[in-house]
Each structure stands twice: as structure tokens, then as C-alpha cells.
């Protein structure tokens, strides 16, 4: 018997406002809703009943309707650990999270930032540490950061992505591009791990916008950072082979195949 729910699985179930952050991702199978109760203390979901009409859930549905976003299809997702806490440890608690509202929501293993979220200014060395951290690993795994992102394209084709996701220091998009949605991914020439994900190993070129679906501004930042990193030698790339014509450098008598030098 399926538990009817009008919740979109793209947004986690909201906790009550006095609950401490970070929230746990409630990834529950539609049939096993009771499993999520183990990870969430305040929401008590009864076993094998069809009721999800708790006040918390109603709040969510109302929010959904207000945003007017289309509900996505149900997906099978498993329960996860509390990922936000690890990321707090990584940054050393540098940023201050607003109470009662997550800074970044975790959905399907991808950190999806919500609209009107004030973008944090993360220094580069924090970003570099983040790339090696457990939080990053559990969010993105071994794939590039753009791999799981799906652009909400209105048609079938597109050449350019949007000009920018962040306007006035605030995320102006519901579905921000892979770089803008995660505050901890800072595009900088020193952050070589991140830059490598946007370079093709076959051609040595930066992937075009269509492939990675980053916004135009992020694309330009990446381009500059990659160029600078290559120039400094932080990014090692294959260099065109310089051919030499020995006739331009040596006189003809030295070019004979049996030339030998005897010191006088």
C-alpha cells in the first residue's frame, strides 16, 4: 500500500522551527516511511498508516504550492547520514547559519541551494579542503560536480546557459548551476581539483556550456582560472611539440652523418 504524499521529494521534510540545524536529509522510500523516523526526532510518523497530514507536512505542501514548482516523480532513495555536520567541521564553523532554515538543502546527494539564499564568501583554501572532505565525497562521489545536474531546459536544444545564477550576492535561481549552487565550490586558479573536472582528458579543452550546464559567468571564471593555472604550471597539460630544423642552427659541415670532432 503506497503512502500517499503530496510532498515533492526534491525538498526535504521540514523540521519544526525550534529544531537545531543542520537538518537531516529525509530520504525515505515510499513504502518504508517509518525508516525516516529513526533519523528525525521530532517528526513521528506512524507505522503502516496512510497519514501524512501532519502540520509539518502541510507546511511543506503549502510552500510547494506557493513556489508553484512542478512536483517531480517519486524516486527511490535511501536514508542517509547527517551530512551537514561534517561540512561544518570542515569549515571550522566559519559561517553562521540562519536559525530554523537550512543553508543548503541536501537532495538526492546533491546540495541544492534554495532561491534567495545569501551566497557565502568562502576562501579558496577552505574550498580546497572541502574538495577532499567527507562531505564532498558523500555528496558528489567520484563524479564531476556537474554530472548529476539536470538543466530545466524549456525546449530540446540550447547553446548558451543563463548569464548568471547569483545576482546581488543572492541566489536568484531555484535551480542554480553546478558551481553556483554549492557555496563551497570556489572557482580559483589554485583550486586545481575543481578545474580538472571541467577539462576534457581527451582534447585538453574546457567542456562547453552545453555539457556542464554552468552559467555563463561561471564559465568565464573557469576559463580564466584554467588559463592562469596552466600558465603557472599548477595544471599540467600536454604541450605542442616544437620541431627544429637543424639546418637553421648548425652549419652544413656539422650536419653530415659521419661528422666527428677532434679536439686540437
Amino acid at each position: 500500500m503506497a503512502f500517499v504524499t503530496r510532498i515533492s521529494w526534491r525538498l526535504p521534510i521540514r523540521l519544526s522551527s525550534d529544531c537545531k540545524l543542520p537538518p537531516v536529509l529525509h530520504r525515505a522510500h515510499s513504502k518504508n516511511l517509518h525508516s525516516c523516523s529513526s533519523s528525525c526526532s521530532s517528526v513521528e510518523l506512524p507505522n503502516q498508516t496512510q497519514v501524512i497530514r501532519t502540520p509539518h507536512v502541510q507546511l511543506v505542501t503549502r510552500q510547494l504550492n506557493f513556489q508553484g514548482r512542478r512536483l517531480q516523480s517519486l524516486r527511490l532513495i535511501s536514508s542517509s547520514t547527517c551530512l551537514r555536520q561534517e561540512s561544518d567541521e570542515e569549515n571550522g564553523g566559519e559561517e553562521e547559519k540562519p536559525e530554523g532554515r537550512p543553508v543548503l538543502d541536501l537532495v538526492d546527494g546533491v546540495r541544492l541551494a534554495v532561491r534567495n539564499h545569501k551566497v557565502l564568501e568562502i576562501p579558496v583554501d577552505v574550498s580546497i579542503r572541502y574538495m577532499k572532505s567527507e562531505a564532498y565525497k558523500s555528496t558528489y562521489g567520484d563524479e564531476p560536480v556537474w554530472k548529476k545536474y539536470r538543466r530545466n531546459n524549456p525546449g530540446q536544444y540550447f547553446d548558451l546557459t543563463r548569464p548568471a545564477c547569483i545576482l546581488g550576492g543572492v541566489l536568484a535561481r531555484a535551480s542554480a548551476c553546478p558551481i553556483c549552487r554549492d557555496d563551497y565550490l570556489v572557482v580559483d586558479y589554485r583550486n586545481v581539483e575543481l578545474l580538472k573536472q571541467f577539462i576534457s582528458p581527451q582534447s585538453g579543452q574546457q567542456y562547453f556550456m552545453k555539457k556542464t550546464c554552468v552559467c555563463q559567468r561561471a564559465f568565464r571564471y573557469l576559463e580564466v582560472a584554467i588559463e592562469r593555472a596552466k600558465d603557472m604550471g599548477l595544471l599540467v597539460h600536454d604541450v605542442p611539440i616544437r620541431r627544429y630544423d637543424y639546418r637553421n642552427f648548425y652549419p652544413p659541415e656539422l650536419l653530415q652523418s659521419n661528422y666527428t670532432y677532434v679536439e686540437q
Partner: protein
Amino acid sequence: MALLERTFFSLTSKLNFKGMRHILIPDTPTIVIPVRGAKQKYHPDSFIGFRVEPRENHNRQYVSHPLIYKDADPAPRFMDARVRAILKDLTGCDHSKVFRHRALLSISAPEIVFFTDEQLKIAQNDAKIKADKLLSMPPVVKVRAEEVQDISFDPALQGIMPNFKIVFTDISLGIPDNKRIIVVRENSGKLRHANGAERQRMNEIYNPRKGRKHYVSELFTAKCLPDVLARGQYEFVLDRACLQFEPDEPEYQSVVAYVYEALDKKQHYDSLLSTRHYGPMLFFLVWHKCLNNFLEHHLMAGRLDVASQVVKLYCLLHQKSDVAKAMTDFRDPMHVVQTFVSLECMDTSARVQLALKQCKELLRSQQQVEQNVAAALGQSS
């Protein structure tokens, strides 16, 4: 900057002075007028056109190194057939490294072909020839003289261009960059050849090469280069240096010497094996007589043949040295290395002597093993 230079190209219509174009190198930002004919006079006030900015001053300087080929000319010794044979032999030819995939925009799908035996032989020969081309060594030449020659002095031309020098470049097709005639007319009326920096700039304007930067790349500065080399990326730096500089430029030789020194300290000679840079690297070490680390590394590993080849190379480059005179039998590798160690390495390095002892023991134990195996086989058969 590149955009400005390209527009300049399109604006100049006629060639002036027998195939020579001229361009100004201003000290301050200035306006440039394209030249339309030899008869036309141009006055600074009537300049129209686009701005040419002087080169940006990053305050970046290329790394410098004392060990460059400045006194004796290495060219005759480098081109000696015996020397080149030894260098080629020691470089080796590992096809998996020589023909490795390079991410250089040209991607093609792999091709699977069925060959007969004869066709396979032909294909293998072609691969050998191609590998030889890829492993052709960058030229080792004497460093270019800093002083530039004066050509003439015309006092009548004094003061025609109060703030600028005029540079004349021969842009005829088919001339290599280092042979191009580039002359400079100064405000004093002196006509002289262009110096290294001016040559580099003109060549980059009229013959841009992919990978060559018109600014001082951070890679070759003292700030960045040690970090890159500490990560063991020697081949990358050497390839970039080949693209950026000419072999007779002091900057090229400094960068390359810096890389070789770093490589020598850490004994990472194998990173350049099967590349085009191994030969010049060896030549450099033997020329400057810095063989202690090399010999120690190879003798510890028991590679006596490599060590003996290098000593032979030493004898070819320093033909009047004691080692060359004392060498009697070139065919016996142990004798060759022993002579060298006893004459050159007694005072300088005890590690090489130790390494030689270790090598001898290694060879002895190998010989023992072989004898035992042969005896066992002999008994069984």
C-alpha cells in the same frame, strides 16, 4: 594586446621599403598610423588610428642560472656522430611513452587494421621512423651574444621620431625566426640589429606560435618554477621552454639548466627516458662534469652499461682530459667505469665509490646465479 596587433596587420595596405614593414615600439601609450606609401611623411600630430600600449610591466623576471654554454661552443661536440649515437642509445624508445595520447585537440577514433606479416614489418618500420622524429633532440648551441652590432650611423635622420624607435622586420615567407633580419633605427640616427627582447617581440607579432606567450609566463619565474619541479613535472617545463624560447637565448638555457639541476639533485633521470630531452640533459651533465649523482644512481641499480656509455661520452667531450688519456680498453665496461672513478671521483664523492662496490657485488651475485642455473641444467641434461 593580440587584438590590437591583428588590427594593425589588416590596416597596413602597402609594404614599405622592399618587403619590410615597420612598427613602432613606444615607451608611452601612443597612436599608430598605418603606412600607405614610401613618399608619405607622417607627423606625430597627424597620427590617426589605434593605440599601441607599451608592454605591461609585471615585474616578472625569468629565472637565471650560471651554467649556460657561453665560453666554448658545444655545437661541434654535440653534432659528433659518436656522441649522438650514445645519446640516442641511452634515451631509449619506449613506444608506450613516445606515442602516448597527447590531449591536443586532434581526437581521432582508433583504427583497427588487419595486417599480413610483411605489412606488419612495414608498419613497425614506419613507427620506428616516426618515433625517431618525435625523439629528435632540441639543439644545443652556444648562447647568443648580448651586444648587438651597429650597422650604420646617419646623423641626417636624427630626431625624425622624437619619442620612438622604428623597428624594421623582414616578414618574407620561409624565413625561420632566428634568421629573420630585424633592425632598429634609433632617434640618434643609429641603425643597429635588434636585441633579444625586440627580436622575440617582433617574431611573436608577425609569426605567432601556439603555446608561446608574449608576456613573461609565471612558470619560468623563481616563484613558481621550484614548486613545479618539486612535483616532478620536468618534461612539462622543458616542453614549454622549447615552445617559448629559441635555443640560443640565455633565458632558455637558464631555465633548462635549472630543470637539469633539480633533476640531478633528486636523481629523477628516468622521468626523461624515452623523451627528446634526455640527450641534452646528459650532454649538459657531462659537459659541466656533474656526473656524481648520475653514476651513483645507475651503479647502485647495477646498470654498468649505462655508466660506461656515459664515461665514453665524457671522453668524447673532454678529449684532452686525464680520463680520456688513461682509457685503454673501451670495450670492457668495468674497466671504463673504474678508470673514471679512480681519476675523477676519488676526491669529490665517496658515494660513487661505494656505488661501484655495490655494483660489483650485484654483478658477482648475478654471475653466481647464472653459474648455478647452468650447472643445474648441465646436471639435468
